[in-house]
């Protein structure tokens, strides 16, 4: 079950056939619940209060053609992954907004750059996911011992501490990746002062502009073929975290727009 939803203040969304950016909100939500539902739908709702001019890139990014839909049904994660495949086959850029990293596991078909704050005791087998593709795990600052030891040696691990000391280490790690990547952003990569969700409790973490810089670095490095925004399950409706999630999506759209412009 899928249904189009509004995204952004001015609601100038393109149709599925005309759009370049496809925002797929994997949620069991109902359109009538927008404004009351938590998780991905809270972010969709918050976007309607976000200005659509991206000051950092000087563009109205959603003008590239943005289509947003809620993807529901019994298994919204699987449904969203199939919808993302369909989008890619049409030459679109899919972004799935998911409650947790099952989205990444099902959706990722490319080298993975994961901006995640922690690994282990999450909803999926992250080590298998990381092993499956050439991967960079950046921003991590907490892990279960088992999960951390099980991360394959082929994965570049850039801790939050290391990144905060020198962000360029991400660009150096990306240098060996020649194909556009799958970018996965978990809200838990941000400092709890920034993200303010019940899941983001670990001290430290990235600041807002740190995350913006890293995302830009990835877009301008190997490029990005698809993306997801996860860890949104605990995001409450009409909360600061909901607005923050929509701002992350706006930033991704801004960098896409900038890339198209160039």
């Amino acid at each position, binding site marked *: 079950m899928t249904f189009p939803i509004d995204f952004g*203040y*001015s609601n100038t969304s393109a149709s599925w056939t005309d759009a370049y950016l496809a925002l797929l909100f994997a949620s069991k939500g109902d359109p009538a619940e927008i404004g009351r539902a938590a998780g991905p739908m809270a972010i969709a709702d*918050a976007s309607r*209060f*976000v*200005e*659509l*001019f991206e*000051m*950092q890139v*000087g563009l*109205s990014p959603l003008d590239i053609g943005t289509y947003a839909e809620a993807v529901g049904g019994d298994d919204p994660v699987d449904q969203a992954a199939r919808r993302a495949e369909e989008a890619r086959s049409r030459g679109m850029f899919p972004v799935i907004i998911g409650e947790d990293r099952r989205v990444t596991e099902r959706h990722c078909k490319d080298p993975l750059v994961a901006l995640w704050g922690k690994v282990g005791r999450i909803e999926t087998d992250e080590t298998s996911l990381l092993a499956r593709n050439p991967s960079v795990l950046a921003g991590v600052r907490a892990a279960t011992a088992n999960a951390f030891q099980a991360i394959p040696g082929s994965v570049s691990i850039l801790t939050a501490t290391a990144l905060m000391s020198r962000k360029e280490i991400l660009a150096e790690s990306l240098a060996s990746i020649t194909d556009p990547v799958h970018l996965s952003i978990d809200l838990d990569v941000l*400092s709890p*002062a*920034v993200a*303010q969700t019940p899941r983001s409790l670990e001290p430290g973490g990235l600041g*807002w*502009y740190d995350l*913006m810089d890293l995302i830009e670095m990835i877009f301008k490095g190997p490029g990005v073929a698809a993306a997801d925004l996860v860890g949104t399950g605990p995001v409450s409706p*009409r909360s*600061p975290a909901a*607005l*923050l999630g929509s*701002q992350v999506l706006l930033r991704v759209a801004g960098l896409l727009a900038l890339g198209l412009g160039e």
Partner: protein
Amino acid sequence: MAGAPTNIGIVALPFEVSTSFRKGTVHGPEAILNELDRMDPFEFNLGKDPFSKISRTIIKPHGSELVDARIQQAVAGRVAGEIMDGGGFPLSLGGEHTVSLGPVRAARARGEVGVVQLDAHADLRDSYEGNPLSHACVMRRIIDMDCATLGVGIRSMSADEATFVEERGAGIVPARDVGRSTGWYSKLDSLPDRIYLTVDIDYFDPADAPAVGTPEPGGPGWYDTVAFLNHLFAVKDVVAADIVELMPTDGDDATVRLAARLAGLIVGMRFPEM
């Protein structure tokens, strides 16, 4: 700076009609006033208790039941004007950002005035949801009063607002620039000597001030703001000010404290000899 004020009038303006994402700014004035009574008043950034030697009057010209923005402006403007005419410094407490319009108009009626806006949002829309007096339009209405403006900490605006900024040359300091250097302070040079200062609490980073209606990530921090205000009050004649858009929230006392501290700072900087 001629005609320095000798007393302060704190004006509570619990007005809220047009806020959108979350509501509750109507409770802002009472929360700040209560916090001013509760907190330790000594201000370490100034080395004094800002209120200890200054005569202050608390004025509550209307209640929270008022819903007509034009009447609210008239009432708030009259009160601010009377304070200024009596040699005082009006510090208004909102309420939604629309409450700035009356006091700014009063300041403008008494001479050329520039407006320094600390805010996350440009608030330069001509109309928002069909309402030209929305909180999202307040700086546009102020520019309509023929006031030069400088928006500091801005990190959200629409494409139309960006076009307006470019065409009109409205001063903007993006949030990310605030703490990077002080080079942008020179933008004050283009403003008149008389200044009205309006502070929307969502200017601050949500990590410091989460209790606002529309929080935007990436805001300036406390100490960068204190440094700028020190400079502003040193080089300009700040004739009136307001603090708006605080949305008190259960479980969050930090934002209320920040707003009250800000009130103390403004008063202390305005009356440096007292």
